[in-house]
């Protein structure tokens, strides 16, 4: 009896470990992979939309500054915005510095304002000098805020890899224990089939539980929401696809594992 309980218990533990390994693997090829994130940013036009938002924000400050909008012409480029977003993304995943250098933007803006003042024969008063300084601060800050919302995250990829290693080792240990208890290799295959089927069912059900909830997510702004919905949908689709394959493999393993028992019957 104890042997039977232990057998079911180990089989359950193996099932959960396989499920955890699937989850960790899907995360490691999605949100824990910076190239995946960059590819998603590109396919969702995030770089272009971030550039547009930054320009819109620049225009907002400029339209109340007494300066002409032409002062912004070519001040920043789409490529520069994309590069700075990538620097920030890289800094999330590695220990490299993710500070955005806005010196060139500020210097260029300052020189353009001085030129505009000269053209208008204006000598700025101390109050105006302060106002110009505040305007430049606002533009630089708007740029920083526009680059991945000025956030500083730290994605611990090494923790995920460590968890995966622990999970794999645990699966091997539990599998050996099951083999030692069950002895018959075909019954062990059936056990593995049960675990695969469990993981498959869970992964498939996950998609149907959450897909309707994430479709209308609206957070921060439309470009971020679109990106988030796309990434989450992709992750759920991956769960569904992997779940379907693992589930079918599980059923096949169960059939193979029970060939002899079924024949006897």
């Amino acid at each position, binding site marked *: 009896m104890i042997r039977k309980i232990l057998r*079911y218990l180990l*089989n*359950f533990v193996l*099932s*959960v470990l396989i*499920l955890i390994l699937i989850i960790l693997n899907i995360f490691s090829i999605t949100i824990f992979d910076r190239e995946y994130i960059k590819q998603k940013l590109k396919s969702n036009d995030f770089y272009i939309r971030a550039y547009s938002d930054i320009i*819109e*924000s620049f*225009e*907002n*400050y400029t*339209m*109340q*500054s*007494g*300066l002409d*909008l032409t002062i912004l012409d070519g001040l920043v480029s789409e490529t520069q915005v994309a590069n700075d977003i990538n620097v920030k993304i890289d800094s999330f995943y590695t220990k490299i510095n993710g500070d955005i250098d806005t010196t060139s933007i500020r210097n260029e803006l300052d020189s353009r*304002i001085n030129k*505009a*003042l000269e053209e208008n024969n*204006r000598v*700025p008063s101390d109050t*105006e*000098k*302060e*106002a*110009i*300084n*505040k*305007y430049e*601060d*606002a533009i630089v800050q708007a740029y920083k805020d526009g680059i991945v919302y000025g956030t500083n995250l730290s994605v611990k990829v090494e923790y995920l890899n460590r968890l995966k290693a622990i999970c794999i080792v645990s699966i091997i240990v539990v599998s050996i224990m099951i083999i030692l208890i069950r002895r018959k290799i075909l019954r062990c295959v*059936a056990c593995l*089939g*049960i*675990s695969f*089927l*469990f993981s498959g*069912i*869970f992964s498939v*059900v996950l998609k149907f539980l*959450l897909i309707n*909830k*994430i*479709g*209308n*997510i*609206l*957070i921060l702004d439309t470009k971020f929401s679109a990106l988030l919905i796309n990434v989450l949908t992709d992750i759920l689709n991956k769960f569904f696809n992997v779940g379907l394959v693992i589930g079918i493999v*599980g*059923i096949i393993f*169960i*059939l193979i*594992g*029970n060939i002899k*028992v*079924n024949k006897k*019957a």
Partner: protein
Amino acid sequence: MKATISDLIVAFIYVAVFVLIVYCLFASKISLAMRMIDTISIDTSKKVLKDVTIDLETRNLKAYPAFGTKYGTISIPSLNLTKDFYFGDSLSVLRNGIGNSGGAYFPGEGGSIIAMGHNYKGILKDLPKVKNGDQIILDLIYGKFVYEVYDAEIVYYEDSDKLELQREEERLMLYTCYPTDGFGHAVDRYVVYARLVEEEFYD
């Protein structure tokens, strides 16, 4: 066959047991996560209200324009200016015209209406030239409202209490950044106050 079916059942029992364990261990966290998802999961298609009309008895709009949408025009004849009038004060609204702040009343509702625009050329750069007695006309999808300017003042941008919110008298407060001919970040606001003198509701 019996063994195969029993193994399949075991897999489903494992799923049920696992869900139960996870639920028992993380019930509060799961419900918090679900609440968070529900909070940020907004069906925006339901928020777009059409056919903006007003209940003349209660003076409340029956349906509001969608945020960020144009629902009429604003004219200041003394400045020879006509701009699109939007609900909202987002960057894209202010880029294109005059915005009606969502925190105040709508024209026709009998209260304070707060509207704003940039002090940029072609928008409200010449607002300080408006004099007492000048008219501001709002021609909206549900009616036409004529206001007469009676006062103007310069306020610091943080002095929001000077733009009093009330519902005793319909007043339009139209403002822009000040100075309008300065350079740099403007921290003052030029506010023009106008009273409703004429209104006409469309069918």
